[in-house]
């Protein structure tokens, strides 16, 4: 399994390098999974290449998610998980996004399925996607403050939740 995955890593990296020497910043292999780190400005072009190239055929975007590595900078690690249904291979595209300027190109023009996935990342991490057709909050209410999945957002939230014990006491007093 590890052998075939490292073979796939080579195929993807070579393919992308021969197309654009700058497209692959780093290739990481961990537990049989391949991660291609892509420069932020080349994300959309690389994703398009992954889908169109006859050797790669990554036609299915399965997931997009973010990891907040604060206090490191760049802080956000954005991961796109691609699957090639005909080749039965997976790959992860990764871009680093700075905390001061959390903007990255949207992949909705490449895969329309990225729409809600990117909205979720926008909602919970506050990363903005340029070129996204409908960048609104999706899971939280529109007027919510902050982005809960950032590491500096407390698990209990910011707002004081009414203490039910007190409510109970208040209602029982005559």
């Amino acid at each position: 399994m590890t052998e075939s995955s490292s073979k796939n890593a080579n195929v993807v990296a070579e393919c992308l390098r021969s197309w654009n020497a700058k497209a692959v910043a780093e290739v990481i292999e961990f537990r049989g999974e391949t991660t291609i780190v892509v420069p932020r400005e080349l994300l959309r072009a690389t994703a398009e290449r992954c889908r169109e190239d006859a050797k790669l055929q990554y036609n299915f975007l399965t997931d997009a998610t973010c990891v907040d590595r604060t206090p490191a900078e760049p802080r956000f690690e954005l991961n796109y998980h691609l699957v090639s249904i005909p080749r039965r291979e997976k790959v992860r595209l990764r871009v680093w996004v700075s905390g001061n300027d959390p903007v990255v190109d949207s992949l909705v023009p490449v895969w329309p399925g990225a729409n809600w996935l990117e909205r979720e990342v926008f909602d919970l991490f506050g990363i903005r996607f340029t070129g996204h057709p409908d960048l609104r909050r999706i899971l939280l209410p529109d007027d919510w403050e902050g982005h809960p999945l950032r590491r500096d957002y407390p698990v209990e939230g910011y707002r004081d939740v009414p203490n039910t014990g007190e409510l109970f006491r208040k209602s029982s007093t005559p």
Partner: protein
Amino acid sequence: MTTVETAVGTAKTMVLNMGPQHPSTHGVLRILLELDGETVVKAVPDLGYLHTGIEKSCEDKTYSQAITLTDRMDYLNPLGNNLVYCLAVEKLLELEVPKRAQYIRVMMVELQRISSHLVWLGTHAIDLGAMSVFLYCFREREEILKIFELFTGQRMMTSYIRIGGVALDPPAGWRQAVERFLKMMPSRVDEYETLLTENRIWIGRTKGIGYISVEDAIALSMSGPTIRAAGVAYDNRKAFPYSSYEEFNFDVPTRTESDCYARYLIRVAEMRESLKIVRQAFGKIKDEGPIKAEAPGIIPPQREKMKTEMEALIYHFKIFTEGFSPAPGEVFVTVESPRGELGCFIASDGSPKPLRVHFRGPSYINLQALPKLIEGQLISDVIACIGTIDIVLGEVDR
């Protein structure tokens, strides 16, 4: 509050708010429908009513504590959620699970798939006006829940699959219980088919409704029965086998019509395939053997050992106070849930709590295609389309 920009002139169309309290939205889904007469011009789903922040809560728990949270996402597939989470942690730890535990996992997950499809079929049929199918389906689902109760002590939130194996040895009498179910079920599936497959009302309500092309289905990242009804034989159990699925013989049913009726036929066929897998797993599970991996410091030691060995006692204490620390890195594991590709992404920073846990809920992503399915159709077809995507709002909102 979501507002909807109307697509056509204001005088001709009206905006109807469907949900979040609507029986046919299967939970708390809200859809803003712009209607021209009875035809849907535009549909905007609005979600988040059931958002509980499970992913955030996971970051504050040790790896083994988070298992109970996974049960509560897709509440029709708790065992599948346990499985995908445990597979991801096991991959992170490079843990080898004993074959016997793998077969038990496969059997339980396939039973879960049947029970989930039964709930789907029953509720979908009741949405479209076929009351009795619901009662038939829930009768058999009850039998499966009884098997779960026998194995795990719980009917729904089982938390049975644990890191490195399963929680308990199969109990006394499990073979009789599963055998009885296997004997009964095939004829019951036939029974549902006699009620629906050639039923003229059923065909009228589902055939040709909610069509989506193969290209659109792939572009919108749809998975599971919805994409197989469009003609793509993409099934994680075959494409990326896990938990010894490569040793099992089963087919991946596909169709090309890509409408609600095709999705119904796919799910019924999948129930039969799952029965095949359960039968094979039933034969493969030996009466004796380990159900957990050998990994001191990660897998809690047996009660008996703790009474005689000091090391076991120390490990037990450390696992439940501090937890264990996998190597730093990221893994992404996918399994085939009843609804499609269920994924789990875990990023570890080398501490006993995960840095990030993310679940790729198939309901969430399949629901994205809903506007594509219903725009241009009648309002009564909206019900059929929501049902046929098979969403569980607990998983959509997480």
